[in-house]
């Protein structure tokens, strides 16, 4: 399948079934390469509609303690971009429909080379890329190569993005819009349903793209409530926390970790799939 269509087709499918989608986030190779691969391959059948894979970075400035710790666990295995892309290639052997979005900070990508990264990611079967510290003003240097390789650059909108600013972001947006529900870092405050509702209504006036909402969604109930106002709910820190609770001080996973993570994802999916705006 042409990778650039996977995201659109997934959102079209969700719309057809009149349900909101679940986007899950896990950092690559957290807690170990093998356990991560088991989790990744288990996600689609547990109800993850889109999958975000974190590229770990030493200095994740927009992330809270949960994802910081998860990056550190991943970096213990010296995880680099080639490792992340190998995991995607492996995943794609059996699963060709679920979109894969890579999420990370710019420096590892810049160091790898913008063009080299875009080509290798397309080859592996990546559908979208979110770079937290590349606002639209700085994104073109990477985006030109992503576009050439049919990969969507997903942009974030925030509670601080004014009506005046939204067109700057949304004119470049593709795939879907990722709305950050709280003014803060990942996994801290709880997203407010009322604020999300108003924010998504505002976004709909500016774009026809699907809207996913993340930051501050921790439980199946919250995922359901937020999912009622957008096309998909993103859960990251809460999933990563399940991993954190099942590893020892050296990052060694306890037996049953994969099952615990996938059961939690299933409960999130059950929640959010009951919703439709």
């Amino acid at each position, binding site marked *: 399948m042409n990778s650039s269509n996977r995201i659109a087709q997934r959102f079209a499918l969700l719309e057809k079934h009149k349900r909101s989608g679940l986007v899950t986030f896990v950092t690559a190779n957290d807690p170990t390469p093998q356990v991560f691969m088991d989790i990744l391959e288990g996600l689609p059948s547990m109800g993850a509609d889109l999958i975000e894979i974190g590229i770990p970075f030493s200095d994740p400035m927009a992330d809270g303690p949960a994802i910081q710790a998860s990056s550190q666990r991943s970096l213990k295995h010296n995880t680099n971009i080639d490792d992340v892309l190998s995991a995607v290639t492996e995943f794609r052997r059996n699963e060709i429909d679920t979109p894969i979005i890579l999420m990370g900070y*710019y420096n*590892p990508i*810049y160091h790898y080379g913008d063009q080299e990264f875009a080509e290798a990611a397309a080859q592996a079967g990546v559908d979208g890329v979110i770079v937290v510290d590349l*606002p639209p003003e700085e994104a073109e240097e990477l985006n030109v190569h992503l576009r050439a390789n049919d990969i969507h650059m997903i942009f974030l909108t925030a509670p601080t993005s004014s009506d005046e*600013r939204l067109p700057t972001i949304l004119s470049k947006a593709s795939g879907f819009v990722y709305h950050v529900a709280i003014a803060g870092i990942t996994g801290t405050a709880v997203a407010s349903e009322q604020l999300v509702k108003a924010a998504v209504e505002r976004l709909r006036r500016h774009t026809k793209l699907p809207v996913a909402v993340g930051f501050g969604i921790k439980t199946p109930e919250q995922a359901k409530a937020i999912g009622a106002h957008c096309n998909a709910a993103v859960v990251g820190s809460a999933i990563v926390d399940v991993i954190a609770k099942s590893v020892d001080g050296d990052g060694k996973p306890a037996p049953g970790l994969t099952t615990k993570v996938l059961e939690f994802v299933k409960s999130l999916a059950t929640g959010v799939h009951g919703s439709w705006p």
Partner: protein
Amino acid sequence: MAEALNTYKAGADENGHFGLFGGRYVAETLMPLILELEKAYVAACADPKFTAELKHLNTHYSGRPSAMYFAERLTAHFGGAKLYFKRDELNHTGSHKINNCLGQILVAKRMGKKRIIAETGAGQHGVATATVCARFGLQCVVYMGAKDIERQKPNVFRMRMLGAEVRPVEKGTATLKDAMNEALRDWVSNVHDTYYLIGTAAGPHPYPTMVRDFQSVIGEEVRTQLHEAEGRLPDSLVAAVGGGSNAIGLFHPFLDDASVKMFGVEAAGRGLNTGEHAASITGGSPGVLHGNRTYLLQDDNGQIKDAHSISAGLDYPGIGPEHAWLHFQGRVDYVSATDTEALAAFQLCSKLEGILPALEPAHALAYVARVAPTLPKDHLMVMNLCGRGDKDVFTVAEALGDKL
């Protein structure tokens, strides 16, 4: 090396870039804030009341102009270049950091911000920020690496006396880089009332430009003072570079005076070949961190490496983007000095001039000690003595095997 330019003072461009370097690499939540800050700063610069108030504070609160001092005994000791110290350690709070803090606190006040956050390494910027917050009655939170809190205890106490809350950062290497990460996380979480007072000439646009402008008072005074003392321009300028705020403040007013050579001295820590250093230009490569593209210490995967320096103020794996550009253009030479050389310079300056320098300018002096003897006696060299050494007495004592 790049072609010579008509001017080296044109940056940053409208997008905050110095050539390849600089920019605004921040999360979307912060973008509207830094765009608003840029507007507020431009408006402040155009307001005569703002410039007058800053000048008044610089004169009557900080004690500017700082002295320009002919270091007679060191000059005789080196037996070459005629060495002047720009005495920015005599400012209120004991370093050049107050120049920037006074400027930014007036910007924050104009923006109606009630809460100020800052990062600090050596504690000089933290003390200067706590000072201006006390002076203007604003809440102050300073992020400081746990390791730096340990080695800069006097400054931690000073900040607390000034009413600031010092929050230790245990993450990562527990130094300046991690303090900056935490300050950015705080800012993103408290956007409505908080002003982030960055202490060095780095971070997203407009910070590198704004900090440089507030620090340029150093170089402007040097021009006037050396003209009075010697009737001409200096032949060379030397300053320590971590993030690079004191250096850019000294250099910038002279960038278009082709005869003036400039040397930025990075911290070589235990030696460039040991990998344990903080020399981002000499030992690093271009990358993106903390809102700007610049030279960084990083590994083969683009992960940021730990810096090392005996000087907490230089212990940072990056450098301000304008320095990165000046290096790229070949306008400024970036060199380095080790922990050991800086310690020797610290002692030499104390004994011969009766001035305890901070460990940061001790790095600059270590470079002076290397080159001054090779230069003619009519060579005029100005070194920025940007901080006083009182804060470093515990570190120096420990390094020398003394128990205080």
